[in-house]
């Protein structure tokens, strides 16, 4: 016990230093070192503890190594035969026992956190239940408690437990929101995985697919949009509001026949592929084309430009995805992209 306390005393300053060094590293919406919710914070805590212990180990080894290499290098003309030491029981016991103690220091909180994070909120009435289904290469988010289904952007209230039930419709994917929570794989069949997370404050957080799932694995990003409670309620209502079709009847017909066979908008259309409700104020089109009015990079543009680019050639944007080149003229693509980019939800 004494021994353990000594080690702890030595670890404390290191831990403090690590916390200062690592905290607030990287982007608030993406970095695991800048956690924005209690789950990621717990994981970050464990990371800090383990990094501190490991830095201690590395420093000890490096110091001994550097000392030995300088002190005991062979000088020219030195033909001395060193004493052939067989070993040293005391030393060997020391470097067996100290690592064991360090492992206990790391192991206890590890096990505690493992069980803490395995808490099941699937029957908790205060938690928001979200069913996540991964597809090549998009994410489907269903809110069974609200009768809402959306894609690519998970809108959630901040400061509420979000209870996730994750599965896949095809190959393995992995559901990861670095700033909010570590990942969980999506398995096929009835093998669903559960996890939960919570965002401390409103904001948009990057989500990623972390398991190789095919050529467009790199593009399988999503977003978690944390909003305040009232906004969330408005969003749910807006998602269920009846949709207005394009004003031009010819375009509306094309849209119904070519798009709504697979996609839904508001109360219309099929649910097989990403829901198009509120496309106009999403952060990205197809997960990777970022909507912005000041495009800086090749994957950025206004929502209208991105939609046009996507509809014109989906395979160019996301190779191997299921969306074909739809039978539309350039004018029709233009009109539909414009219509979709104007679909904004009031929340």
């Amino acid at each position, binding site marked *: 016990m004494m021994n353990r306390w000594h080690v702890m005393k030595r670890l404390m300053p290191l831990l403090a230093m690590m916390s200062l060094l690592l905290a607030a*590293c990287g982007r608030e919406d993406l970095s695991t070192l800048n956690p924005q919710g209690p789950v990621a914070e717990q994981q970050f805590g464990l990371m800090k503890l383990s990094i501190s212990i490991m830095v201690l180990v590395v420093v000890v080894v490096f110091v001994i190594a550097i000392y030995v290499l300088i002190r005991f290098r062979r000088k020219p003309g030195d033909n001395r035969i060193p004493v052939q030491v067989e070993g040293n029981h005391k030393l060997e016991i020391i470097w067996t026992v100290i690592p064991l103690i360090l492992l206990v220091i790391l192991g206890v909180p590890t096990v505690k956190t493992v069980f803490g994070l395995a808490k099941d909120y699937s029957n908790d009435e205060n938690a928001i239940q979200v069913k996540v289904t991964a597809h090549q290469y998009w994410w489907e988010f269903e809110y069974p408690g609200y009768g809402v289904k959306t894609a690519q952007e998970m809108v959630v209230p901040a400061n509420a437990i979000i209870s996730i039930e994750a599965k896949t419709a095809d190959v393995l994917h992995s559901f990861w929101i670095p700033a909010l929570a570590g990942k969980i794989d999506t398995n096929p069949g009835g093998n669903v995985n559960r996890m939960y997370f919570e965002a401390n404050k409103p904001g948009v957080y990057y989500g990623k697919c972390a398991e190789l799932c095919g050529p467009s694995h*790199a593009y399988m990003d999503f977003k978690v949009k944390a909003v305040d409670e009232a906004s969330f309620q408005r969003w749910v209502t807006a998602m269920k509001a009846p949709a207005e079709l394009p004003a031009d009847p010819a375009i509306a017909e094309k849209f119904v026949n070519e798009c709504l066979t697979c996609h839904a908008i508001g109360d219309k259309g099929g649910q097989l592929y990403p829901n198009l409700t509120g496309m106009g104020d999403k952060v990205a089109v197809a997960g990777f084309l970022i909507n912005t009015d000041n495009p800086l990079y090749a994957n950025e543009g206004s929502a209208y430009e991105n939609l046009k680019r996507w509809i014109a050639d989906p395979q160019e944007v996301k190779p191997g995805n299921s969306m074909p080149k739809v039978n539309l003229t350039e004018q029709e693509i233009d009109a539909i992209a414009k219509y979709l980019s104007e679909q904004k939800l009031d929340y």
Partner: protein
Amino acid sequence: MAHGHTVKRYSGLMDWLTTVDHKKIGILYLIAGGFFFLLGGLEAILIRLQLWKPLNDFVSPDTYNELLTMHGTTMIFLAAMPLLFALMNAIVPLQIGARDVAFPFVNALGFWTFFFGGVLLNVSWFTGGAPDAGWTSYVPLASTTYSQNHGVDYYVLGLQISGIGSLIGGINFLVTIINMRAPGMSFMRMPMFTWTAFITSALILFAFPALTVGLAALMFDRLFSANFFEVANGGNVVLWEHIFWIFGHPEVYILILPAFGIISEVISTFARKRLFGYSSMVFATMLIGFLGFMVWAHHMFTTGLGPIANSLFSIATMLIAVPTGIKIFNWLFTMWGGSIRFTAANLFAVGFVPTFVMGGVTGVMLAAAPADFQYHDSYFVVAHFHYVIVGGLVMGIFAGLHYWWPKMFGRILNEGLGKLTFWTFFIGFHLTFFVQHFLGLLGMQRRIYTYQDGLDFNLMNLISTVGAILMGIGTIVFLVNVVVTWAKPKNAANDPWEDGRTLEWSIPSPAPEYNFVQTPLVRGYDALWKEKMDGNKGMTPAEPIGPIHMPSPSILPFVMSLGLFVTGLGLMYNFVFAGIGLLITFGCMFLRSVFDDHGFHIEPEELQDKGVKA
């Protein structure tokens, strides 16, 4: 005494195709493994070129997935393992005072199956697509539903065939080390490299069958529409993950343990000191090998195994740090009080120690399951295993090659070029992989063919690419060194480092085909060192000079493996050829069974005439 048979001697290419001499097979492994190492390295450079800037389109996403799959598969199965087998073949029999391995014919067969398996895997580049589901080949992505070309078939069949080579190679070394040690060479007098080769072989024996089973199941799924991993028909994809990692995790130790052995030999020789804590080193190695089988699910923390499994596998994984730590400190204290000479070989060994520690500590970090939810499948993991495999294993191999090159080829590698190799490779390595820890922590997932701009990933990826190119340059310097050394006369002394401690340094460089004119008598650990310290000129022989029995060369291993290669291609394209291939292989087995080959003898008079001969 008459020859049992006419002595079959081949020369030139036929000599290499038919050889059953462990030293020549070692060289064959070195050439083939080196070739695949260059191939895998080229794939790595292409990967890094694609990633040097955001949104790059140097390669297509499909090609990128092929590159990352083939890079991993090639490096693990076709480069790292064969290069270790090269050193084990070249050195282990010499270290235990044996004239060859227990089963020379099987040894040749092991090489050729590995070789043809590797060639089969790489044929896929030219036949419509290499495997692209990652070296782990997770289903359903690797199932026929999502991977329709033959890529993954090549993976399954190529690895199955080369796996035969690894398995019989492992068995061969087990038998060799158990049965063929020179008189006096008890287990606890065996050199550390032999010990690690022994334990690695045991791991191969237990781990490879799991891979064989997994690959067979995947092969049935893909070629004959079986349902092992077809969820819709009652299959289970998590099963593949388990099978793969029950093999895959011990595989990591199969790779790293011999590197530990090499480092132990090199550090001890160049510090002119006995290995510190030899017996604890031996037991640490065993413990690592044993625990290595208990930790596979730490690759699957995010699969959803539940908190009990995750806790148990967390703790078991952390425990491995203890024996590994013992080894690290033993190496440091071997050098403590020694007289350290910094040859190129020793630079690699000395560089290995801190580098491997860095890979080891990130391993313990990964073992904490909840934190692993963040690290898993991010660049942090990429950094971790490259620290272990490149910083550990490849540095170990380089150390071993520089150290034993004179024993294998009779020439010492150029020291200047060797040191240049070390510095370029070492600096390049840390540039490439150190920053990747942070890329992962900042949110970059692995196996992505490109990344968005403006996410703070750009600079670190650029640094990583520069480092990779530097590693490439280091490798080229090594190749130049090989060529330059080749042109020099074969004049290495028996004990070119002058501080050799083990039996291989008591015989000429390179070793004659029968290794030892007379089997040596081993009187202690570090057998040669002991004789030197006692003022003796060399080893005391344990037998009078007499005729030496040698195994005959044979073309059968080559043809048998060729048969398997044809079978592999046939299974994909035309079952008739698969039948022909099997006929060739079984025909060879039949021939081998019915025609006894008793080998031949080298008579004492011949020993006198020949002197030193390769």
